[in-house]
Structure formats: C-alpha cells, structure tokens
C-alpha cells in the first residue's frame, strides 16, 4: 500500500485514457504525457498501460508501506527519499516506511510516478483507470487524490533496478495541422496565430490550455454547428484567445478550430505551466506522421535496450 501524505497542487491516477465512447459524450482523460508514463512504467517492470500518479507542480509527499520499485519521469521536482536525492528517469528500490518528497517544479509542470506491481483499484470504467476530473469518475473515487488516500498496490519485482531512460526532449515550439475552418477565419488571423508567441493563462487545467497574448487577439463573430473535438483541437472562442483542448476536454464544441496540435507534440503541454510562452507552426501531414514515427522508434529502442539489460 502507498499513502498520499500531501497531494500538492493536483495528484491523480491516470493511464492512457478511454476510447470508444466519445459519441456518448465521454472524453479521453489519461496522462497528458503518455510517453513519460510508458517509460517510467517500463523502468519498474510494469505493462505500458499500468496506471501512474500524475503530479502537478510538486510539493507532494507519499509514504510507502511496502518495498517497491519506483521511477519518476517528466519534470525534475528535486525528489528525495528519506532526504536522499533521486533523479527522474531512473528506477529505485524503495523500502517499507520510506517517504518520497517532491519539491516544486522549476522548469516544467508535471511529473509521473510509476510503482512496480498490481494496482488494486475499483473496476476500470470503460476499460480505463484514468480519473476524469471534469466528469468526476474513474481513479480511486472520481477525484484528484486527497491527503490520507491510500492505494493498494501488490508489489512485483520483475525487472533489473537502477536503470535509466531518457524522455524525448521537451519543446515550446508546437506543430499544428491546419483546421477545417481555415477558409472561414481570415488569413490575417491565421498569420497572427503563428507570428506571435502566446502564454499559458492561469485558468488552464487538464481540460484545456488557455492561451493569451499581450500583442494580439483573434476576435471573431463566427457561430458554427457543433462538431467533435479532441485533445489537441485548438478552439477559438469569440474573445480571440485560443484554447488547446487537453485530455479531460468535452467531446463536442461549437467554436471554430484554428487547427489540431500534431499527436507527437501534445505531450509538451504536460510541462507548460501558467506564464510559459509557446509558439505555433503549421506543418504538413507528412511531418506529423514523421514526428510520430520518431517517438514510436524511441519507445521501440528503449524496449530492446531494456530487454538486453535484463538478460545480462
């Protein structure tokens, strides 16, 4: 068992989210950076889609009531175990009674904690353990974790420990594929969208990253029939401040779309915190496919390397 002593700003149970029910209004949820989740799960010998804890900003504390293999990934929160520093991207052996402390993230926003073993959670909802923080279901009790919440995890020690694996580099340069409303929005608006930098506004959350800019706004008066939206859809409300939808977003919306963040770049939103600057570039479908292939081959190489190390 593990116990949340301090959840920090937000700590929730996430896997890769749920699919197949978008037509019923049920969104995806899941880790905003699924690559961090997969890599730290592999480092502790878990299956790729095993749940992890998504920790936002840090200032969190977790107590372990058993011996476990653990790995953190995502941003560096200057973590310590019983006061001794541990590094993100490496696996560690934690003893019963140990306390993991996370300080505040300085250069990113989210960290992922994998714990080796079988997570004894309530029955998965529509095939996923992810917490949908907007609709309030999944995870332990449909909410972010509170102080005192315990998760029953049966430990397993199935891999070599003390191994490290890099995460593909983060970026504030976000690649976008053109949206279906480019002919309705003025060319000037689309140019402004890519020529200016934007910052993440404080009202952002797992539903969406709200953007603002001191230099420009893209106001419009378009009203469109509702269409499906997904993580990565860039909505443009009449206020002219775009919203990049993230994992807990609703499934339909009526605002025009500026475009869709390419799948390979969506993970960067895990590390963008309020106040951070980012900018956008329209790219071809071919570039989107290549970027995705690059991430897939990174994971494939890691798999081969870990299998090799475990045989040694």
């Amino acid at each position, binding site marked *: 068992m593990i116990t949340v002593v301090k959840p920090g700003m937000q700590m929730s149970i996430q896997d890769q989210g749920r699919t*197949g029910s978008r037509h019923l209004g049920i969104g995806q949820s899941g880790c905003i950076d699924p690559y961090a989740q997969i890599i730290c799960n592999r480092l502790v010998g878990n299956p790729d889609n095993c749940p992890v804890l998504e920790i936002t900003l840090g200032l969190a504390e977790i107590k372990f009531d058993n011996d476990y293999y653990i790995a953190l990934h995502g941003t560096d929160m200057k973590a310590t175990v019983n006061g001794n520093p541990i590094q993100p991207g490496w696996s560690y052996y934690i003893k019963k009674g140990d306390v993991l402390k996370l300080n505040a993230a300085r250069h990113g926003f989210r960290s992922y904690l994998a714990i080796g073993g079988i997570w004894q959670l309530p029955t998965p909802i529509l095939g996923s353990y992810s917490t949908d923080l907007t609709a309030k279901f999944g995870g332990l009790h449909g909410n972010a974790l509170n102080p005192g919440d315990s998760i029953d995890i049966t430990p397993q020690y199935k891999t070599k420990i003390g191994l490290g694996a890099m995460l593909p580099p983060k970026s504030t340069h976000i690649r976008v594929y053109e949206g279906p409303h480019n002919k309705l929005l003025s060319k000037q608006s689309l140019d402004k969208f890519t020529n200016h930098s934007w910052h993440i506004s404080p009202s952002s959350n797992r539903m969406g990253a709200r953007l603002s800019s001191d230099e420009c706004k893209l106001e419009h008066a378009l009203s469109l029939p*509702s269409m*499906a939206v997904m993580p990565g859809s860039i909505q443009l409300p009449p206020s002219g401040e775009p919203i990049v939808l993230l994992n807990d977003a*609703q499934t339909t919306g009526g605002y025009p779309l500026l475009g869709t963040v390419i799948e390979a770049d969506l993970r960067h939103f895990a590390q963008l915190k309020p106040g951070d600057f980012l900018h956008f570039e329209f790219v071809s479908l071919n570039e989107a496919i290549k970027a995705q292939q690059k991430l897939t081959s990174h994971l494939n190489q890691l798999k081969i390397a870990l299998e090799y190390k475990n045989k040694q």
Partner: protein
Amino acid sequence: MTTYSSPSITVLTTHCIYFDVSHSEQTILETQKKVWALAQLCQQSGDFIDVVPANNNLTLYLNDPLRLQYWLSALNEHWLEVSLLKFNSTHHKLPTRYGGVHGPDIKHVAHYHNLSVDDVVQLHSSGTYHVLFLGFQPGFAYLSGLDKKLYTPRRSDPRTSVPKGSVAIGGEQTGIYPETSPGGWQIIGHTDFKLFDINAPSPCAFAPGDTIEFTIKEVLS
C-alpha cells in the same frame, strides 16, 4: 428522390477525418438521419476507435492512420449509398413530473408564451424528440423536436446547481441533465429515468438517433 449536397471532407490530423454536411439543403433532422446511418456503417467497418456524430457532421478516429487515404476516397460513395432503412434505434419513454418543486421555471415559460402550465405540459409531452448527438457532458443529449411555441431564452442568471434528471428548455432545445451540474436552462420538470450510470456496462441510456417521448407522471402546481 431526395438530393443531398456533396459533403465537405477534411483531414483533422494523421488519424482523424471530419465529414461535414451542415451546408445541406435538407432540414437538420433529415440530414442527421443520414449522418447516423453513415456513422453506423463506419462503426461496423471496425476501422475506427471512435465515430462521433455532431450537428450535421461526423468525426472519424482511425485505428490505423494507414487507412486514411482509403476512407478519404470511400466516404463520398458511402454517403450516396447509405440506406436510412438499415439504421436501428431505440425509443425511450421518460415518465416526467412537471411543475412544482420539480419544475421551478414552468410558470415563467408559460407566462413568457401566454400559455397555461397545462398547455406547456401538453405541448412538451406530445412531441417525439430525436437524439441528434451527445456531448457537453457525459450522456447529455442534444434533442431536436421542441415545439416552436415553447422556444424560451435561457435564464439570465444561471443556477450553480441543477439536479440530475431535470427536464429543461434552453432556447430552441429541450434536454435532460444527466448529472447534477451548473446550468442556465429553464427547468420545467424532472424524470427518474436513469440517463447515465458510469458503473453500468453501457453507461448511457441514449445513443445518437434514438427517439424520446416525455410521458406525464404528475403535474404539480
């Protein structure tokens, strides 16, 4: 024979296609019936993770991005050939308590249209409504079929909490709140019909294309 304008088909991303017929000359409901039939055909193909109809459009999420080109070229033909007759849907009867504590805004709706509360109940419960699509929150159905005589603007002061099961009117639409949530629609009644249960194997009672009827369980003053 009914003619349909040709759809606009765009790529949203490597594994996602947007099929739009919202510019069609047919009514929203006539066009939507074909959208449901096309959605069903796509669902049955096994090529998609998700098939999401919305307001006279359809978004398709592919399992395998390599099937993108095939579907881009095949969709038009499927749209022309898809048959409305093969579409299966379910009819739901929702016993509803109108007025009183269950419908705090029904008097306002009646007053707004110079009708009696009974007229509002009769007009609302005599209609057959189609589930155009779901969205906004899990299990929330966008319904078509509200009698024009009941079109009522939303409340200027939205409620912070509308009880689960509330039957309400917002502008040109009527709807049911699947969960307790904030809301600005005029609440005219309440149904105990379970719209949404996240722990059930199929959590949502309605699917796009289903029809709904509100039956009068009680009218309170």
